[in-house]
């Protein structure tokens, strides 16, 4: 089972598609959650997920807008997609009946 931050990272990377790399994923997480995401947390989690086979990373070519520095590109593997789906399903199931859950019509259940 994924952790909360792992799920956020995988979902952000999946949403960015071919443009998923360190800074973009970080910005996506910060904008979505409204919380600061440290580089340390980001890169250690990427490593952990890659070790588990949920992500694949590689270094892109250097680009001038980053001072000639390469990006660490990220792609979610099919196993990663399945793990994120499992996490989402579990959260959805466990949340049924919770007072803060809003139904599709916008009313609290």
């Amino acid at each position, binding site marked *: 089972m994924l952790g909360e931050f792992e799920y956020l990272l995988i979902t952000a990377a999946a949403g960015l598609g071919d443009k998923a*790399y*360190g*800074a973009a994923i*970080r*910005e996506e997480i910060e904008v979505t959650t409204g919380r600061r995401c*440290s*580089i*340390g*947390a980001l*890169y*250690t989690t990427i490593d952990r997920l890659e070790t588990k086979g949920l992500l694949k990373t590689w*270094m892109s070519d*250097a*680009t001038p*807008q*980053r*001072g000639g*520095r*390469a*990006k*660490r590109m990220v792609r979610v593997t099919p196993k990663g997609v399945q793990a994120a789906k499992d996490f989402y399903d579990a959260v959805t199931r466990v949340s049924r009946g919770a007072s803060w859950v809003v139904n599709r019509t916008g009313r609290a259940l």
Partner: protein
Amino acid sequence: MTSTHWPLVEVAARLLERHEREAVLGDLLETGEGAWRGLLDVLGLVVRRQLSLWKNWRPWLAALGLALPGSLLLMGTSVCLSLTYQRLLGPRFLDLIPLTQQDELLPWLSQLLLLIGCSWASGFAVGSVSRRTLWVSIVSSCLPCLFCLARFRVESLSRFCLLLFLAPAIWGVSQGVRVIRIKLGPSIILAVSVTVLMLPTWASPRIYNLALIWPAWYLVVTALGDGRKVERSCNGMR
């Protein structure tokens, strides 16, 4: 990010692996993060990386199993060697040694070779077991050295006699960091040599002797393991 603070961030990023340094510095440049925040981010990642290394047994073995006890024991051997040397030569030169004392020259030479062999093997093992935490192993080795240097009370000897083991140990560390594994043949020759050289002093506490020679035998074990891996991969290719 201000140009004056950027070199500080770059210096901190040197503690990261090359690819990771590239990615992190590029991310910081792209997002235009503040200098101190960027520095904290880089240092945070460095700390996380260092801490994650300690989940493995290797840094513990290198720092607490090899560097710390090894430096203590080798300092003891260095002092023994210096005292024997002093007793043999006194103020005179080698060519003036009386014949009776020349009988003691061979044991002294074997002690010298033992010190060199054990120091090199310990250094090599420390360098090869955990390269990325080498600085912790160095600190683990320096602490007992500083303690003993401060408390050294043998008036006839310079306190720097304690550090005779350092030169071969540093040589071993530099080899260990670069080579990682010694070949089986040389490792067996080294381990057998230091064990044979140890035999005349076997009367002294045995745990001391074993602690001195075990890094050399550890190198044999790692070389054996390496040989088996090569053999397995060759069989797999057939």
